[in-house]
């Protein structure tokens, strides 16, 4: 998979993966946000379960 936004280092600016593919960038950003906030939800569920089982 070619993830590079550049074909040469000459005059390169943004060099991070998918810098030339905004849709893919947004997909990973969304995924990161889901992981972050989803984990908080999982923490709440796990805690309730732990408290109820003691």
């Amino acid at each position, binding site marked *: 998979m070619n993830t590079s936004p550049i074909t040469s280092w000459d005059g*390169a*600016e*943004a*060099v*991070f993966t998918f*810098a030339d593919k*905004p849709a893919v*960038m*947004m997909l990973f*950003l969304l995924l*990161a*946000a889901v992981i*972050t906030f989803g984990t*908080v*939800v999982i*923490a*709440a569920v*796990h*805690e309730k379960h*732990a*408290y109820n089982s*003691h």
Partner: protein
Amino acid sequence: MEQELAALTERLAALESSTAMSGTINSEIFYWWCTALMIAIHAGFLAYEMGASRVKNVLASGIKNILAFAFMVPTFYFFGWYIYLSFYNGLLPADDAAGLPWELSMGPNLTDNATGIFWAAFTLFAATTASIFSGAVIERIQTAGFLILAILLGSVVWILGGAWGWHPQGWLTVKFGYHDVGAAGVVHMVAGFFALGVLLNLGPRVGKFNSDGSANAIFAHNVPFTITGLMLIIVGFFGFLGGCIIYMPGEQWINIYGQPTTLSAFAFNTLMGMAGGIIGAWVKTRDPFWMMSGALIGIFAAASGLDVYYPPVAFVLGTFAGFVVPMVAVWLEKMGIDDAVGAFPVHGIGGLIGVVACGIFAGGYPNIDGMPPVSLWGQIVGAATMAVLGFLPGYVVSFVLNAVGLLRVPDHIQEKGLDIVKVPVSAYPENYVTGPINVATPAGVAAAPAE
């Protein structure tokens, strides 16, 4: 002759370019190490919180603190940096809003040596605010509720205060000449008052208060660990305060408001304030926990004017604050509020003293670009803004979390201990720490500073 001149011009241009690049990279290196040092703040808070907890809650306190750090990083990337760069006028983004996570500066970019390193430094400032709050609520807050509050404080609330009062175009600076170079208000006051707002809804640890309202001392399981943690925090604050000033390649340093300053100024006044704080707290309490807290209090008391104080002024401010703040901790306990590590007195009141003192002892210092000079009025407006900005979201959101059952650990779980309920490993598996683990004795023996 012309050829020699052309060659000389070419060499001069190359030299200028090389010097400029060297300055840019030096700037990056400086903030890289400031950020690394700031991680010591978090390590210190981790040790401090775990030491202050009872054996039965040690690891749960540690997990909570580590998670605060972990959640600050992505959330500050998602929206914290955007809030700082875009909300300096108030509650609406400015026309030149920046810092959104899909911008080309928000990742490796060979034409931008600044964004990543400044984002990192500010992320660590955010982690500091979350850690300040984290200590106050140990041993009885639910992890999910804590994370929601930590994200709110670290990636929204304090950085909004930063945009208003710690930004060259912030409205507090532009309209009132607010001066807070070491973040006494925007970090410490906001975090301390936020913690107070949460504590009112969270309630005390089981066993802290008797039915007649009198307090019991809940002993830290490892006081040496808390003291060492506090010293680590102080080490980290040299990174924090270094990150508060701006490296200008080829020019004099400037503070966050664009006024010229030096790292030497910060060195003088940080150390003098710190020493004063230790002495003031020692005179008042004779307690090593409060002496090291006093070191922090002394730094915060001098923080707003680190760039301009005559060092003995910083020392006197530190001594005063180190003496007074432990009394606030005693008062708080008498009011029935269980602030397990003194976060509100140390950070909220220590920061308040710092902000107001700057109006008294640094009044009249000029600003730039026609903005108002430093004044007592400007500092009072700034202090009031930071207090409300911290307290209100902390109180309101924790009230809601409490209403939906996401804030307080049930009392019977607190009595059992959080580690055995939530953590798959044991802090002291070989029973190294023996004896009763849930001691409650009359107040004034160890947890409260001596009067």
